[in-house]
């Protein structure tokens, strides 16, 4: 997605040479910033965007501020189901929770429950931040993620809630 978006977007600074900048996109392929290749040059010249797959482009004072992809018109869902690796997980050795999101404007409420049904962890993943990016997200599962609480060997259930509705759920096992 990242490379595809880069190829589709050509930035041309009119004088004296072409392609004098680097374009920074986020994991979802949306515009974040533009850095000039040579800050010594005058970059006040107009920026010409030849082509884009972005459906929405927002400008501030004539500059491209941010974009939104057509995918944000999709309903919220997991493009890749939430899964934990390795499975079973050893917290001291660390692991990853990975999942794909269809949109980048979702506030995700993430909760983990122990085998008695008690909620032992609650986190919020915000749009355009790790855990709330459109595309694939990887969350590090290390002792810090669990607030340095020891998790005994066992099975834990988790849910993702968006707008007070269940978006997805899963389970993982922990070994000491």
């Amino acid at each position, binding site marked *: 997605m990242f490379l595809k978006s880069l190829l589709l977007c050509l930035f041309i600074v009119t004088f004296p040479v072409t392609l004098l900048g680097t374009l920074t996109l986020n994991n979802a392929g949306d515009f974040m910033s533009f850095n000039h290749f040579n800050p010594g040059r005058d970059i006040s010249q107009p920026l010409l965007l030849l082509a884009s797959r972005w459906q929405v482009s927002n400008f501030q004072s004539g500059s491209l501020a941010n974009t939104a992809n057509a995918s944000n018109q999709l309903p919220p869902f997991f493009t890749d189901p939430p899964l934990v*690796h390795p499975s079973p997980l050893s917290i001291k050795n660390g692991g990853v929770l990975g999942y794909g999101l269809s949109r980048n404007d979702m506030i995700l409420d993430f909760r983990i429950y*122990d085998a*008695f049904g008690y909620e032992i962890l609650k986190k919020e993943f915000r749009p355009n931040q790790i855990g709330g990016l459109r595309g*694939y997200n990887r969350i590090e599962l290390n002792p810090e993620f669990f607030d340095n609480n020891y998790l005994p060997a066992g099975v834990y259930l988790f849910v993702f809630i968006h707008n007070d509705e269940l978006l997805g759920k899963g389970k*993982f096992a922990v*070994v000491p």
Partner: protein
Amino acid sequence: MILRNFFLIFLTLALPIQAGYYAMITDLGISAQSIGLGNTHGYSDSSEAVFSNPATLKYSKGSSFSLFSAEVMSDIDYLQLSLSTQTDFGSIGVGVYQQKVTNIPATYEYLEATIGMKKIVQVGSYDYKNSMYKISYQHPLGNNGSFGLSYNHYNVTIDSYTGRGNNIDIGFLAPLYQSTISLYAQNIIPNRQVYYSNNSAETLPTIISLTHIIPVKDLTFIPQLSHQRSQLLFSTGLAYKPSFIPYFQLLCGYKQHLDYTAKKHQKFTFGFGLTLFLLDVYYAYERSDYYLKDHTSYISLNYQL
């Protein structure tokens, strides 16, 4: 000098070594009756006492069979089976308590070149099983008291990992005027561990519960104080057995409870029991934190053989 040495030895034995605590599955509750009474000990009259204060086996007449089943969050199954019988030299009981989860995703990580990032995919599934096996013995003491002892064997299977450990429980019952005092200590050998096949270990927590069973006419009031993982927990149960419906019993309870991370929670519980000839049927209800199901129901059966 002797006192100081004794104190040092006691500290060495009693202080936990550097390992996390094993999660005791019996903390959920050992039967619907026990959960309905706020997870209190010392009130049971069936073989389920094998998983509670074993001294309580004295209330189990003849031979007894107990079955308890629950499904927590629609994914985690609990099952308790126990059997006890009275002999000329005391009561003997055996039981198994099991926690089981199936279809846990086994995963694989690969590099997805189009996004330049590793993705996780499911490549099968595996099961988790945590079992506790018990053998109990109860012997009467003078002045209507009772003493009980249980041997516990712990067995955990998580995919290809296994864990094993064992420990001992002891319990006492002593009459006090019209009431009864129950003292129950679980995993009394300090710092015993469950050892896993990946060379790691978890410490079996020592849990001490002091319960007072106070009958007042048709009511029985059961306050309890427990010490577990350096925390004091208060529970209480109230059983109402109306004299005009002797086969019916109403239960309610309050409990302070530790989750897997040793955070304290509190809950109210409700339940009822029906006696049909030699069969006792109990139902208990409590609220749950789980987003998809805000309550949990428990059912248990006791049968006098």
